[in-house]
């Protein structure tokens, strides 16, 4: 199978481990969990026991070590062997919730929040988006007002991955004036009086991953829960975005690879007009086009990750990688459904689900249009 050029023997061994885990723990339940819209919470613990939850985190935070390249490779095998994108992204919501605490948090915050999440004991979520603004992070309206040793938080968040059962939410709040200079990051425990899961949201795809609307009403959050300095949250959020976008690009490559594999297997088996589908040139050319686009997106993702790891985290290149991968993924999943014919429209076939899952990616983690805006601004056209 295709792999990233940066992969070493360790990545190969890691792939084998992630594959073994997903085949044993996810694949047998993939359809059930996707249809149920949730997977068992116990799976976080199982994944931690298998050593797969702490990948990309330093050992002093309870992590397994490794970097973004290991995160991408493990996530790809989870998708390929587990065949439930929703479960994989639900298990991975710590990948956006924890990095600000790891990079800017206090030792006490790491002990209290990072380590238990990486042991699979706590579930974490990142809360930035609000009903009135998603990509426009600087417009955050959820307010945190200092009152003695506490911040009093009022407002709401939406589209929060793992939000219905998160034990805490790394939350963007307004502690200062208008614009990006007035935003802070605050860790809010779900058991804080006034914290409420307002709604479990129904989505087009990613079914096994729960998504919530959260409400904060006079939530009193200890000032120790502030991450880094007050009003310095915007930069922390932005710094998180580059690696998040590359993770999303990697997921797109994985989803498309899975859709391609499912389709090749189907084309070799399904007969029409007296021969199997892959006996038709039109089928083989479609498969060739699908794999070509996957290879191109994988190559750009590889370059972007490699540069990021070398300290050159060009936000424009990450945005290009994300757009290339998301559009490739939508195309490949669409072709996968097409080649499956009527069966591709049926829920019992994985490609039907992948087609819906794929639609998230040009929206989540910054829309395709925002990516283009980032590229244009960075390059000062």
């Amino acid at each position, binding site marked *: 199978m295709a792999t990233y050029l940066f992969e070493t*023997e*360790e990545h190969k061994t890691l792939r084998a481990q992630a594959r073994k885990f997903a085949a044993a723990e996810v694949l047998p339940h993939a359809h059930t969990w996707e249809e149920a819209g949730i997977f068992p919470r116990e799976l976080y613990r199982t994944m931690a026991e298998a*050593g797969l939850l702490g990948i990309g985190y330093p050992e002093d935070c309870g992590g397994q070590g490794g970097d973004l390249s290991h995160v991408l490779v493990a996530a790809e095998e989870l998708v390929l062997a587990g065949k439930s994108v929703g479960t994989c992204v639900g298990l991975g919501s710590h990948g956006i919730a924890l990095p600000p605490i790891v990079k800017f948090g206090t030792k006490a915050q790491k002990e209290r929040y990072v380590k238990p999440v990486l042991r699979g004991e706590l579930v974490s979520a990142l809360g930035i988006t609000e009903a009135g603004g998603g990509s426009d992070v600087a417009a955050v309206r959820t307010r945190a007002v200092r009152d003695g040793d506490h911040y009093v938080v009022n407002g709401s968040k939406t589209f929060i991955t793992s939000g219905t059962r998160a034990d805490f939410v790394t939350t963007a709040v307004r502690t200062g004036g208008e614009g990006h200079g007035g935003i802070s990051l605050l860790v809010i425990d779900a058991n804080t009086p006034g914290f409420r899961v307002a709604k479990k949201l129904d989505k087009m795809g990613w079914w096994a991953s729960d998504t919530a609307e959260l409400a904060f009403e006079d939530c009193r959050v200890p000032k120790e829960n502030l991450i880094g300095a007050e009003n310095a949250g915007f930069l922390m959020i932005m710094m998180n975005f580059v690696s998040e976008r590359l993770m999303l690009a990697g997921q797109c490559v994985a989803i498309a690879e899975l859709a391609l594999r499912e389709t090749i297997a189907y084309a070799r088996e399904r007969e029409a007009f007296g021969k199997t589908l892959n006996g038709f040139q039109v089928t083989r050319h479609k498969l060739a086009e699908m794999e070509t686009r996957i290879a191109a997106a994988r190559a750009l993702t590889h370059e972007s990750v490699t540069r990021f790891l070398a300290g050159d985290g060009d936000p424009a290149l990450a945005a290009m990688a994300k757009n290339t991968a998301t559009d490739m993924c939508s195309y490949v999943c669409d072709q996968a459904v097409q080649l499956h014919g009527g069966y591709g429209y049926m829920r019992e076939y994985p490609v039907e689900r992948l087609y819906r899952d794929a639609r998230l990616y040009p929206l989540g983690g910054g829309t395709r249009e925002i990516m283009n805006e980032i590229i244009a601004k960075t390059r000062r056209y």
Partner: protein
Amino acid sequence: MKILVPIKRVADPDNANKVKVSGDGTQVTSEGLEWKMNPFDEWSLEAALRLTEDGAKKTRTGEVVLVTIGPKDAAQTVRTGLSMGAERGILVEANDQELDSNMVAQILKAIVDKEKPDLVVMGKQTVDGDSNVAGTVLAELLGWPLANYAMSLATDDDGKTLTVKRELDTGVSTIKVTGPAVITTSDRILKPESVKNGVTPADFKYPEAEGGRYASLKGIMAAKKKPIDEVTAASLGATPQKTLSYLKFELPAARSGQTTFVESVEELVQKLKSDAKVL
């Protein structure tokens, strides 16, 4: 406690490239295959790791030495075992096609003479050759006791004696073995409470699993620094002779895929007799 765990790489049955027989039928070809550790060996490694650790604290208390006999790139399989927690590895260079179970046992004897382990814990067979011979011959050559098909292991207070439950067709046989000894394992050795070593708390339960433990990324990184000694049978002073040769390999006939539906048990029995001719 020091345990020697022999491991062999075998063709990964999950890989798309299937095992093929060479044109002249003299050998099974390995081109294009992906390799993995023989599952029986992986279970033995799991048993050996459990014997030499505090399972609750996740700390090592003994030493597990892996040995494989094969070409240089078989080191990757040893590395996987090191990632799971074994301390070091030995690669005896050899060509798979030029080995038989007897030779494997003789080479392993030379390794045992050099390493002087307290136990050899090995898979009862490999999934490619399925011979189920090497462990027994090794015990014979060493003059050591053999406890094969072990489904549970518990160390006695002296640390040298093991209570072994053996899984047999006729039931479970419980024996006491004083080391050094050769032990081969069955898959029940993976049960959460199958190994007791007097260090891991008696009520500790390992997770339910169908194979050995996962290698964590931390383990994979640490394994890079663990040594794998490369030796040859000659350098060990062993001169194993091949006594068994394969004359011809044939793939089983392809299945027809024909399906017969029956209405009743009576009809099923009758068809099994008349059509399938298996009764």
